[in-house]
């Protein structure tokens, strides 16, 4: 993903915002429960990737669903939409990191 996003330094007089990852900081610190993927159950159906509002769960065709814990807010939509019940929400041991 990082290859496709180029961070271009804008001229300081032109107040144009550029697309960038993490405009609100590391939103993973907002999380109190986190999704844990059981890769043996994952059928790679892409439902979690389609519905994730934070765009932080991506399905790799060979491995399965991979969660980006830096930005996952822990809303739990992925666990609800997973037809194979491969995603469990577990409580964070320590708030933030």
């Amino acid at each position, binding site marked *: 993903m990082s290859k496709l996003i180029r961070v271009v330094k804008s001229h300081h007089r032109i107040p144009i*915002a550029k697309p960038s990852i993490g405009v*609100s900081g590391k939103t993973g610190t907002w999380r109190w429960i986190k999704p844990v993927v059981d890769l043996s159950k994952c059928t790679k159906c*892409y439902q979690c990737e*389609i519905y994730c509002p934070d*765009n932080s769960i991506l399905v790799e065709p060979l491995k399965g669903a991979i969660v980006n814990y830096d930005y996952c807010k822990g809303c739990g939509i992925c666990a*609800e939409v997973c037809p194979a019940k491969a995603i469990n929400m577990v409580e964070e041991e320590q708030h933030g990191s």
Partner: protein
Amino acid sequence: MSSIPILPRHMRNTVLPGHAACHGCPIPIGLKVVGAAFGDKVILVVPACCTSVVLGMHPGTAFNGSVVHVAFASAAAVASGISAGLSKRGVRDVQVIAWAGDGGTADIGMASLSGAVERNDDFIYVMYDNEAYMNTGIQRSSATPAGAWTTTTPLGKKEPKKDVAKILIAHGAPYVATASIAYPHDFYSKLKKAAGIRGFKFIYLHAPCPVGWRFDPSLTVNIAKLAVETGMVILYEYYDGGIRLSGPSRPLLDKSKRKPIAEYLKHQGRFRGINEGELRSLESYVDSSWEWVKKFMQ
């Protein structure tokens, strides 16, 4: 593998992680589908609404495409200007989308929206409907359904919901559709279809808000699905003078196939104080909208 085909891969790069949406927000799900349909060849016109908060503050923006933030009432007017400018310069491959909430469409932006339909300007207007003014503190809008709690209707709203899709059909727009964030493939095909039509296109997008509707953030997609299954939201397309029901709503024309409305209401804290009479009036509202759809079906 699931039987549902996946959306194009570039939906991954449209909404960037780390945006400012609340937990379980439906707006980024809708924006991801916009990205799947058009990639970065899109100019989004966003009035003051939740989306302008979601996309974040100045040095960065969470949408990997062009975004114009405009004043509340002017989304349709600005989008008209941009699409006219693009066509004068011969730019054909960029889609202009006005992306406004229910307040910016049904209440404040109604005048400029009506003007844009009358001029038949060539762009897509997406109204994502979270049924109140959410980011300013859950005030009632005219798209709030009857019986729903908001901070300005503490005893439940008395008036029924304003159906903007109906109003736009009466305006004579060439393409009007309703969609839901629970059915991204349906929304995707409607966006693609709208992009191929010259003139004003309107898409209503039902988007349940966990904060304002008082339900658990993990249930966003389930609530949106229930809204369609109970018949509260009817998914259809209007073009060539007739309504065509979309896949998820097609079997629900038969009233016995619809789930009871109480099942949709029970998950939401905003309907906790609803009484029997208000439930009946919601049911009759749903029945009358289905009767209306039947009249115009082809």
